[in-house]
């Protein structure tokens, strides 16, 4: 995991929970946003947009396929931060 992502993991989790409108204790690292937390594709786009703004990165929309759990979010964000730096 990217160092910045590891440092701000709690913040990312909070952002994910805020966007998906779920409690933080409901979200595990491998819980599917779509199947377990009831998110839809629009929520994923919103999550991506929030991450881009919060971390000042640019993520390709094709990464939606990977934004399906918290580990995927960490991975996508880590790669985006690596590209930026």
């Amino acid at each position: 995991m990217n160092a910045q992502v590891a440092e701000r993991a709690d913040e990312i989790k909070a952002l994910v929970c805020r966007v998906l409108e779920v409690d933080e204790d409901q979200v595990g690292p491998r819980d599917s946003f779509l199947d377990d937390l009831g998110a839809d594709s629009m929520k994923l786009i919103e999550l991506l947009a929030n991450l881009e703004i919060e971390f000042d990165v640019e993520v390709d929309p094709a990464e939606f396929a990977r934004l399906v759990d918290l580990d995927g979010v960490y991975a996508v964000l880590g790669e985006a931060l690596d590209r930026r730096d």
Partner: protein
Amino acid sequence: MGAFDRAAAARAKMAQVQREMAERRSLRDRNFRQKREQALDAFKKQGPVMEQVAKHLGELGRRRKQAGGWATQKTEQDKDFVMGFGLADEDPSKDPYNFRAAPRPAAAGTAPGGIGSLDEDESPLARSSAPMPPPAPEAPPAPEPPAPPRAKRRPAPRTEIDDDDDFSNQSTWMQNR
């Protein structure tokens, strides 16, 4: 308890209720202002988020349209993929002009010189692909021997053949003689 006392108690009670109501009102107003500021902040944050969402949706729509309406992961992934033919499509790590067959498993018990005994390194293909040894230095040219005198050419003696069975030499009758 006289009427004045009851009135004073009622006034005190009324003043207490008014104070309580005022406190409640001020608390409500404070909460309202707090919530309004939070909502404003969230709305201000949501603006760029929605802008970003719209951008992503537009981009996804553009890719799907480019892919002829197919919303597959592949079409959404390759942003500016241009279909082409030729070596660019193939794996650049594989050189198509330097193909070598997979090594044969070592045949056990093969008689020397028999089928299958030719090692890959001994094959003509391997030999041909091996680097050529540098050419030997050229020997200095030997002095040319004196040319022999040219022999005079003599015309071949003409033989007149007129064989009935052999038509290959039947040309004399065409010579108008």
